[in-house]
């Protein structure tokens, strides 16, 4: 009975996911307009841009979920790898132009070079910072991210564009991915990245390595007593999360046709932390949901802040409402204080409350 229902449940989940992805893939061809949530009908480039951005942030949040949700490693430097992907691809596309490769081949080669760079960088940073744990680990990763941020701003060899950021060099990018009219292709690319990152995350979580880091998160000593050294497995997870973040970063470069030093700052990692906690720590789809809710809220609140209705309010209401980050930060504090499971944890906590209630009722009878 339980076996069949478990299998049926899995089937339902797979079917629902496929339907959801199919619906998301069809969105550019439909004319769905949700006023207040989307900036316009779903086929317009503006809306697709926002949605694609939300999906890339969701992919990034998933990679952060691997670190924080699965392995319990509180990193303050995850933005480093996202920036490494975005800046890496941007710099390689600008400077790597072999004659013997066709333009499309050069694009693929640039992506592969960036991925290799991300693997080396994340393995190096991970190998060093995983020598300490807890708050010290958070600090070392923060320090590395800060070093990356300083490096990017300093514009070494005029390669990263400094404060202005690095625009995308489109000569070696396929035409299908360039320009406002092609936004729907970029949207599909972002969706593909999100699906791939989700599947990799799922695979890592279900793998033996995933079980070991989850066990080490709960009780490090016990895992050691069992004869497993968590360091190596943690390093693998750290590197995988770094590469996934770099892939999301490459999508970001193509979507925004450029990258600014903002994505390398510690603040960017903090917003990632906000997303994961908002969605629910430890839930895969919580990270996705949190990213989409956060991005749409940020976008809509920014639009609200610039609106006439807010400008005409008295100061005491106008000032807080005109700052999206104030509202998001306050929301975040409230979630941490009163909703420990985040958005994804709501069903579980409702269920638990109901179960407690029925138990109490039975006891009363």
């Amino acid at each position: 009975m339980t076996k069949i229902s478990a299998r049926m449940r899995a089937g339902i989940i797979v079917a629902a996911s496929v339907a959801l992805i199919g619906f998301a893939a069809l969105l550019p061809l439909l004319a769905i307009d949700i006023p207040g949530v989307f900036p316009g009908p779903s086929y317009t480039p503006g809306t697709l841009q926002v949605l694609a951005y939300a999906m890339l942030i969701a992919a990034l949040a998933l990679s952060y979920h691997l670190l924080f949700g699965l392995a319990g490693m509180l990193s303050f430097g995850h933005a480093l790898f996202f920036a490494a992907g975005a800046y890496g691809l941007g710099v390689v596309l600008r400077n790597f132009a072999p004659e013997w490769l066709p333009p499309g081949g050069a694009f693929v080669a640039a992506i592969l070079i960036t991925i290799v760079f991300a693997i080396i960088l994340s393995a190096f940073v991970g190998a060093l910072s995983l020598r300490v744990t807890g708050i010290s680990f958070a600090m070392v990763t923060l320090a590395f991210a800060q070093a990356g941020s300083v490096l990017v701003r300093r514009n070494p060899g005029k390669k990263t564009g400094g404060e202005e950021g690095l625009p995308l060099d489109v000569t070696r990018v396929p035409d299908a991915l360039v320009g406002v009219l092609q936004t729907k292709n970029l949207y599909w690319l972002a969706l593909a990245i999100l699906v791939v990152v989700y599947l990799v995350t799922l695979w890592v979580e279900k793998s033996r390595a995933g079980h070991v880091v989850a066990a080490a998160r709960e009780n490090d000593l016990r895992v050691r007593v069992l004869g497993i050294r968590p360091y190596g497995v943690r390093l693998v997870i750290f590197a995988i999360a770094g590469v996934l973040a770099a892939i999301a970063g490459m999508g970001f470069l193509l979507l925004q046709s450029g990258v600014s030093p903002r994505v390398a700052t510690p603040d960017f990692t903090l917003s990632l932390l906000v997303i994961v906690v908002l969605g629910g720590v430890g839930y895969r789809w919580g990270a996705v949901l949190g990213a989409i809710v956060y991005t749409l809220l940020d976008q809509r609140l920014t639009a609200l802040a610039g609106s006439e209705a807010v400008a005409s309010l008295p100061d005491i209401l106008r000032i807080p409402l005109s700052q999206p980050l104030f509202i998001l930060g306050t929301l975040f504090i409230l979630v941490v204080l009163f909703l420990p499971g985040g958005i994804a944890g709501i069903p579980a906590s409702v269920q638990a409350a109901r179960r407690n209630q029925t138990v109490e009722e039975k006891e009363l009878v």
Partner: protein
Amino acid sequence: MSTIVLLLITGLGLGALYFLVASGLSLIYGLMGVLNFAHGSFLTLGAFIGWEVARRLSDGTWWTLGASMIAGAIIGAAFAAATEFFLIRPLYLRHIEQVLVTVGLALASVALFEGIWGTDPIYVVNPEWLGLTTEILGARIPNSRFLLIGCAALVLLAIVLFLKHTRYGLIIRAGVENRSMVTALGIDVRRAFTLVFAIGGAAAGLGGVLASVYYGYVSAHIGGSLLIFAFIVTVIGGLGSLAGAAVASVLVAVLQQFANYYLWGTGDLAVVLALAAVLLIRPQGLMGKSVR
């Protein structure tokens, strides 16, 4: 020679600023295990309130500066104590959540400061003497550095005297050493938590007014940029160690000044490398006890 003296004394001045932030961070972490991301906001609020006070009084005299320093320290202490009471206390012993709450507070408060005081830096007017320089061994040192060093030394002295010679100081020192033992002896440590936050907030608020003297302006991001260096100082010095924070702030700031001058402006990178090196060789920091 004069260059080295100049770099050393300006480094001490910057170190004084780091110390004012790092002392509170270190005490809070040592006693409660909370890494306080909102500490930069205490500093920023202190700086803004100090500026508001100075603006309302006659500008540019020593009395005004003194008044704004006191106002900054008081408002920093009040903000910090309120943070502890309303946000940290409900999450007692859940360290990750406590860190997250302070992250949220930092994001929200910086946005609010931007909304109230705008995003552009506001330039401050100081007593004339602070804008001049004094010659020591051939080096022309800006006078504001002496004010910073003096204030930080006074704060260090005051905190040490408080910790060594008062009952609450004793409780705090004992709590850093072994919190559960203090609780077991029937002492309410929670009051010490609020007190430590208030002391840290007061030092940060005072640091905010002094930072506006040092940089010559106030902005909503003044605290955030100092906070990262204060974190590095705290970790290098050893989390929970006040003496470690004092030594490390001077070391970090002097290293930064020297690297900026001799190694083509790479001060920030040198500090980050120093942090990585310290953590790898001595994970508990220069004067810290074993890591928890």
